[in-house]
Every structure is written in structure tokens, then in C-alpha cells.
């Protein structure tokens, strides 16, 4: 199989790529996986653990972690839009 060289974090975005993060709060199951991967972008409500979006437009150095959070989310409640 061919692939890229890999920079270990699965990023590879060019400079100037903007990212917008959307969370589908009713879908969230409070697993906290996103908070463990990207704590600067996601948090959990104290009372029930439901996701709180801290940064809707995270800086590029966090993009790889945010994408990982979106893929790992067990409720598919995180959507990432990149331009």
C-alpha cells in the first residue's frame, strides 16, 4: 500500500486552512472522548457530561486533534468543516 510519509499526527493541512467545528448536542452521549483528545476545544457539562464547544474555530495546530475527536466520537456528534 502506498501512503504519505506520515507526520505522526495525521495532519497535513496547508497553511491558512480554516476549520469550523459543529456539535450535535442532542446526539452527544457524554463519553468525554473529545475532551481527552482536544481539551482546548471541547469540555463537558458538570451535571451530565454533555459536550461544551469551547472553540468553534480552533487554530491550525489543533486541527489534527479535532479531526481525531470527530472520528472517535461514539455518537458521531462532531462535524468538522474545513475550507
Amino acid at each position, binding site marked *: *500500500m*502506498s*501512503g*504519505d*510519509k*506520515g507526520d*505522526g499526527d*495525521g495532519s*497535513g493541512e496547508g497553511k491558512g486552512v480554516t476549520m469550523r467545528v459543529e456539535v450535535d448536542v442532542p*446526539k452527544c*452521549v*457524554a*463519553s*468525554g*472522548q473529545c*475532551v*481527552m483528545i482536544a481539551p482546548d476545544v471541547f469540555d*463537558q*457539562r*458538570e*451535571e451530565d*457530561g454533555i459536550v461544551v464547544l469551547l472553540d468553534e474555530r480552533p487554530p491550525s495546530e489543533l486541527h489534527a486533534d479535532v*479531526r481525531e475527536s470527530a*472520528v*472517535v466520537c*461514539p*455518537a*458521531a456528534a462532531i*462535524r468538522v468543516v474545513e475550507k
Partner: protein
Amino acid sequence: MVGASAAGLAAAETLRREGYEGTLTLIGDEPYHPYDRPPLSKQILGGQWDPDRVPLRAPADLDALGLDLRLGVAATGLDLADRTVALADGARVPYDGLVIATGVRPRRLPGDGGERAHVLRTLDDALALRDRLGPGRRLAVVGAGFLGAEAAAVARGLGAEVTLLEPAPVPLAPAVGERVGRMLARAHHDHGVDLRTGVAVAEVTDGGVRLTDGTLVEADEVLVAIGSVPNTGWLEGSGLTLGDGLECDEYSAAAPGVYGAGDVARWHNPLFGTAMRIEHRTNATEQGMAVARSLLRPDERRPFAPVPYFWSDQYDFRIQAHGYLRGHEEVAVVEGALEERKFLAVYRSGDRVAGVLAVGMPPKAVRTWRQAVATRAAWRDAVGELVPEGT
């Protein structure tokens, strides 16, 4: 990728995202785009969600992956020497790298219950049962595991009369321990479910469920939720090792260039020093991602050593657990109280913290204990003296 559910999709997405530009074939025996299964026994069965909410990706996001999607067609055979997968429609799909993610299917009971006999694994299963539940309908659920318990709770919410039949004396004791299992049993009683433990079921009949002592438990609908069987039949004779699932090494590899992911794969998890096969939603994704990276960068591959995670919604509470609870030797409730259904229990295997299970606790507390599992903290440091279960 053979298997178009969470694990196969995660592998495909990771391959594309991390630079693979060649052909990616995603094969699935169901006719639907990859969809999410946990909501089937929750929001779909309860009717809160329409089926259009379960796809794992928006159509545009799926299109962007540029997949060769083969849906509604099962894989029937694997030729390792020739590097091809045979499909039910006669096609043969060549591969350079292979991800086997064919999941599991429900175990069934003998007997012919006709339309009243249900299992719950696919979207079609969930819709069929949903359409036949309602106020006054009598549902018998065989098996008080997580799936059976969730379905019983949802059916009560819909006004059905529910009988829950469980062969063990305490539901889920091997998975969560006796005390937590008894708490779950009390929750069923409190919500009006007729939970009968220690009963052996013989068959589904046209009148309900027949027990081995001859008793008939009358029911309009019967849900059989007695566990799953890995879908490995198509791999028989392929040369891959099959046991309780597809046997894989610590990299989740079954053969050179061939990986297993998701419910079907049994692999050696070095974090817990044991082989495991995990039927949890998050593991499917994490394992799919991990094997994709191993295919892309074989020289940098690392053992797959996750902390398993699951959650279960029952009535008005949610169970969350991190770690590997099976085979635990001790359970300690370190915060809250079981009887209030707000507690945090930790599980010991050997002299280490193996898992944490929480109901209604603040997320920070749960994450702190999850970290103790991830670092395999010494029980003595994290909890205290070792007290074997049952003493």
C-alpha cells in the same frame, strides 16, 4: 475493507485523511450507508429518532472519500495467496491491504416464533420491533445483558408490559460485578419490569417463550438478546486463524497486510496483558483507525493498546465504563452510593486498577479514574488494601 459499519468506515476515512490515494473498496452486506448501532436499542426503538438520524456520515462527507462502495453484497471468501475477496454477486475484489470488519450477528434460540421472534442488531431489526411495541403489548426479553436491559427500559417507556428472562442469578455479574448487577436488577423492578433470574429458556414458540421446566411465558413479542457470534464463516478455509472471532496479534494483524477491526477481531491488548474481543462502539472506530495507520506506515506501527469504553442508557440513568472489567477480582465503590444510582466503582485485576464504572458522576471524576486505568495504576496507591470479591 470488508464490513461497512463503524470499523470499516473509520479505516477508510483514516486511510484517505492520512494520504492514501489509491482505490478504497468498502464492502457491506446491508444495503445502507454506514450507520450507527447504539441508537437502535435507544432512540430508534423508542421512536424519538427517525432512521435518517443514524447514518455515521453526511452523504457529502461520504462522497468526499471517493470510495468504491459495494453495499448489499456479502463477502463469501478470501484467497490470501491471490489477494482477492470473493463477493456474493460473483465479483472478485483484489487488494494490497485488507481490513476485516465483518462484525457479529445475534445468537438465536431454537423454535419458530414467526413474526413475534426478534433480534436487535440492524436498523431493520429495530424498526420491526418498534412497529410492534406499544401500550399493553406484552414483550418478553430473553437475556438481561446491556442490549436486553436497554430494550426492556425503552419498551416500558412505550407502555409495554415487559418480562425479562435471565439465566444467571444476577444480571451482568461477570461484566460489572454482583453489587452493580443487583443495582441494575432493582432498577428493572422499580420500573415495573418482571425480571426473572435463574431461568433457563428452551425455545421461542407461537405463544411466547418456553422455559426448560415446561413453563410458557406468554408474550406478543419476544426479543432474543443472548449475545453474538462473530461473522467469520466466510473466512473458513482461508488459512486465517478463527476462534472466538478472527485471531489477531498485538498489532491487530491476522496475516501480513491483513488486519481485523471491530467486534469480529480478537487481539492481544498489551495494556491489559490479555487477548480480548470488544463489542463496543468506540473500539470499532479506534481499531479501524489503528489498523489503517499500520497499513499506511508499516514501519512505524505500534501495538493496539486502547482503554475500552462503553456506555448504556437504562431508564433515567446512564452507565459509563472505561477499562477491561471482565475477570475482575474486586470492586470498590469509591464515590457516591449504589442505592442512590449515583456512584463510581473501580475494578481490580491482579494488583492493578483495571476499570471504572460510573453512574451520574461528574465527568472530571470519571476522567481521573480513567487515567488510573490507562496508566494501570497500582491498586494499593489508588484505592487501598486488596480485598478479594466475596470476602
